[in-house]
């Protein structure tokens, strides 16, 4: 999470530098690239249109008018489904109802979903359906049916008409086609209030959009939203239902908009589209690899006399280690016989795993005596031998420059569990297993879209060290010293739940850790990673596991190297840590854990279901769905339901959120396995809470399994 800010800042800088202009421009019309409205969904200004972004695109928007700021993140989850997360800041002592304001600004977080039910084609218009504020407090609650048709040789003109409910059904309602709308239940928010959707007054909305020039678009719309609460609090005045807008495309992916709203108010907006599939920087500029060195052709068998050469092993090891250091790969070991070599590699550099594989194989072709025909690379992660990839040297020599050499070499390779076959025993060279790594670096820790402030951040220094004892044992620790920041201003917004059956404050106390520790032990653990049997991986961690909990964590994962399914079991016994970040403990302890099913759904979607006991002792299940891009981008959503009732959970009703991971290499254009990520939650509360463990097995090992190696296969000769 602390890396997000760095990523965002770097990302913005790079965008500003106009790097996106390196991208080949594609034609952009209101159809192929719709305008994003103030809600962050395809639309005009305040109203929607029946359009969609290109599949997989992200849209970031910001808009401001009349002391109201909205920041949104939209994602085209599926070709026809757009989802949006919105954070709104309303000033002027706004409250959604008659209650007096609790603070100067009102912060609202909400999710929308928009479905392009029928794309435009032939004579008929596109049809869309959307629900705004699906699980929030309902201040933007509205639903709509919308139709859009494009006209003109280049689809320059878009005509939209629709029917809206909720906020979109306020002006000149046409009636209540699906019955009355029950009153908004602000109580806890967070749950999907199906009773409200498409109920109550329905009203007409519509508008026109005209692509005036390549970069300029003009909008006019009729919006039935009366902004009742905003008007009541004196934030805003409406004289007319007509909104006017002009938007101008800046660079290849940004848009600036100027709008005149409801006959009274000027508004500014900005949006940027990000295609996770198109890197922000020039794609990887990692130095060219060492080429394959083919063997001299000869009709007789290659000599194996080298196996008896006394200094042979040392020479081979030195050559391999030198070349691997050049490529940034870590040498773990080499096992040899006359015709077979097994190279153990730790990849701490290449985000595209097959790139590490291709480079390791080329190093073998440079260093191995000609009689070695079978090359195997075993990827080692946290001391575990994960997968073993076997290729013949002849294939490597033949496919290096072949037009479809990347696909061919992987087709011919065998990817199997590293424990499946024995290693050759003639020569066995191991790098020393024991060793220290350490580092001192700055860190930025952020809290985004908190219910009491949009952004809070700390800047500090962190020192981390790890010591490998060998045989899979590792001791790791990290110390953090906060230099400056605002995280200590975090507070518990929605107060403790007064119910006697409410869960123990296992996470709502988090703010106390931020307030009461300037220097803290982030984590300090002794861990063991192992391979108890084929297809099985194990982890045991003991110590200060995370900021808030210390104890013992154990995990066992079954995941065959070529399987789309994995099953994991995690059992932990933990005790809450003292607020000051030291070694002390509090008197709350719990045994908890999960059985997890990991499913690769194909088409770049992954699912994970965890069932078990959570930190507060509640029982339940978590469902996670993620969309994973070949370049490492990962966008997901999760929800947890446990036996903690919605009332006892408090605001939000149950735990849910969205996750975002961006590989650093996407932004800086060099090879690195670092990535930035964040979890956006409406609220972190005590029901359905889990441990923030480092080194969970599934993510560690599947990077080197068949699916990922094939997904990154295009990089093998890079």
């Amino acid at each position, binding site marked *: 999470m602390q890396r997000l800010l760095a990523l965002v800042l770097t990302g913005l800088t790079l965008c500003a530098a106009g790097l996106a202009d390196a991208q080949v421009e594609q034609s952009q019309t209101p159809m192929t690239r719709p305008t994003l409205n103030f809600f962050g969904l395809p639309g005009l200004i305040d109203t929607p249109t029946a359009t969609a972004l290109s599949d997989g695109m992200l849209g970031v928007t910001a808009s401001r008018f009349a002391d109201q700021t909205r920041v949104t993140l939209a994602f085209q989850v599926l070709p026809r489904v757009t989802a949006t997360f919105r954070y709104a800041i309303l000033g002027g002592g706004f409250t959604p109802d008659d209650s007096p304001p609790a603070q100067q600004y009102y912060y609202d977080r909400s999710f929308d979903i928009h479905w392009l039910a029928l794309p435009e084609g032939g004579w008929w218009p596109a049809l869309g359906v959307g629900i705004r504020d699906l699980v929030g407090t309902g201040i933007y609650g509205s639903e709509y049916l919308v139709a859009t048709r494009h006209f003109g040789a280049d689809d320059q003109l878009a005509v939209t008409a629709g029917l809206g409910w909720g906020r979109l059904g306020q002006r000149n309602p046409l009636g209540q086609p699906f019955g009355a709308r029950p009153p908004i239940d602000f109580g806890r928010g967070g749950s999907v209030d199906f009773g409200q959707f498409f109920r109550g007054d329905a009203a007409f909305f519509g508008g026109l959009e005209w692509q005036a020039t390549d970069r300029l678009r003009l909008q006019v719309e009729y919006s039935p939203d009366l902004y009742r609460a905003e008007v009541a609090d004196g934030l805003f005045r409406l004289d007319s239902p007509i909104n006017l807008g002009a938007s101008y495309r800046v660079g290849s992916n940004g848009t600036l908009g100027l709008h005149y709203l409801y006959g009274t108010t000027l508004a500014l907006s900005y949006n940027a589209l990000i295609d996770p599939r198109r890197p922000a920087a020039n794609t990887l500029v990692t130095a060219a690899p060492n080429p394959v060195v083919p063997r001299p052709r000869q009709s007789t068998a290659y000599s194996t006399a080298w196996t008896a050469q006394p200094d042979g092993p040392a020479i081979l090891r030195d050559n391999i280690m030198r070349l691997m250091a050049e490529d940034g790969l870590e040498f773990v070991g080499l096992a040899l016989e006359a015709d077979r070599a097994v190279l153990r590699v730790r990849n701490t550099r290449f985000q595209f795993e097959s790139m590490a594989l291709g480079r390791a194989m080329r190093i073998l072709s440079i260093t191995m005596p000609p009689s070695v025909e079978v090359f195997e690379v075993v990827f080692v992660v946290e001391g575990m031998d994960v997968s073993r990839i076997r290729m013949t040297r002849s294939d490597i020599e033949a496919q290096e420059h072949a037009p*479809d050499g990347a696909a061919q070499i992987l087709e011919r390779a065998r990817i199997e569990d590293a424990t499946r076959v024995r290693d050759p025993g003639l020569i066995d060279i191991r790098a020393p297993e024991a060793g220290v790594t350490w580092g001192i670096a700055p860190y930025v820790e952020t809290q985004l879209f908190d219910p009491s402030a949009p952004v809070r951040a700390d800047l500090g220094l962190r020192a981390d060290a790890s010591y490998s004892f060998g045989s899979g044992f590792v001791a790791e620790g990290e110390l953090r010293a906060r230099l400056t920041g605002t995280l200590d201003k975090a507070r518990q917004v929605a107060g403790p739940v007064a119910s006697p059956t409410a869960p123990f404050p296992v996470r709502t106390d988090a703010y106390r850790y931020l307030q009461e520790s300037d220097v803290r032990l982030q984590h300090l653990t002794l861990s063991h990673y192992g391979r108890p049997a084929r297809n099985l991986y194990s982890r045991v961690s003991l110590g200060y596991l995370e900021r808030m909990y210390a104890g013992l964590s154990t995990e066992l994962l079954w995941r065959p190297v070529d399987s789309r399914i994995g099953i994991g079991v995690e059992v932990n016994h933990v005790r809450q840590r003292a607020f000051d970040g030291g070694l002390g403990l509090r008197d709350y302890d719990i045994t908890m854990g999960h059985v997890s099913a990991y499913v690769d759904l194909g088409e770049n979607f992954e699912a994970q279901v965890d069932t078990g006991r959570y930190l507060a002792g509640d029982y339940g299940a978590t469902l996670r769905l993620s969309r994973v891009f070949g370049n490492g981008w990962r966008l997901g959503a999760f929800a947890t339901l446990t036996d903690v009732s919605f009332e006892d959970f408090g605001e939000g009703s149950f735990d849910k959120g969205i996750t975002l991971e961006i590989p650093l290499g996407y*932004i800086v254009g060099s090879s690195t396995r670092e990535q930035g990520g964040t979890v956006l939650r409406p609220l972190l509360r005590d029901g359905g809470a889990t441990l923030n463990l480092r080194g969970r097995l599934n993510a560690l090992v599947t990077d080197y399994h068949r699916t990922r190696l094939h997904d990154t296969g295009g990089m093998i000769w890079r």
Partner: protein
Amino acid sequence: MALTALRLAAIAAVVSASLAACGTGRENPIVVGLLDAMDRVTDARGAAGATTPVLTAATVPPELVAALPGPLMLVELPSFDGSTGMTRVGQNGTVETWRGPNGLGLARDQHGVLISTRGFGFDLMSSNTAATSAALSARRAGAVARAMIHLDGEARPQSRIYQCQLRLDGPDTIAIAGTMVGLTKMTEHCQGQDGYRFENLYWLDRAGRAVHSRQWISPEIGTATLTLLRP
């Protein structure tokens, strides 16, 4: 990643930058980001106020060529506003691999037709240029097809077929390292299925090898001019 002029010392050195903040641990994203940004700024400044002229095939000093051992090639990259020297580092069948001091590399066949690039960013991953290569070595005009493979943003290979017309332009004299060399010029006009067009120029010696050529790499990188200073 601007390229500086060919420099003697740089030829042999393979530069690799370590980006750890301090210590032996992993790369630190903040530090990587800052260094990267600084790199871009200095590059931009360097490009604006460049004092050393970019070396071209015509302006490479013969003394410089003589001072460097082994096979040598000059690669001019208009999109980077620079040029670099490369040495031959590999030979696999008929394909030669060349590499420069700044991490750039390329592969070409025995007739000098570009097959792939590495370290440029939007690289040409691989190609099938057998028809072009055969026609060039025979100085034969006519239609040839070629396949070129690039990666999309998700690193998936995208193969495109280009239909090309080779034209024999006839004898041409060009300056290489201060010497006028008489060669035969051929031009290859290519068009992809999506309408994308590019043009390659080849100056061939008697053996049918492209001693000097301007060849297309990718839409983002554009073309490179390759001059064989010493085979």
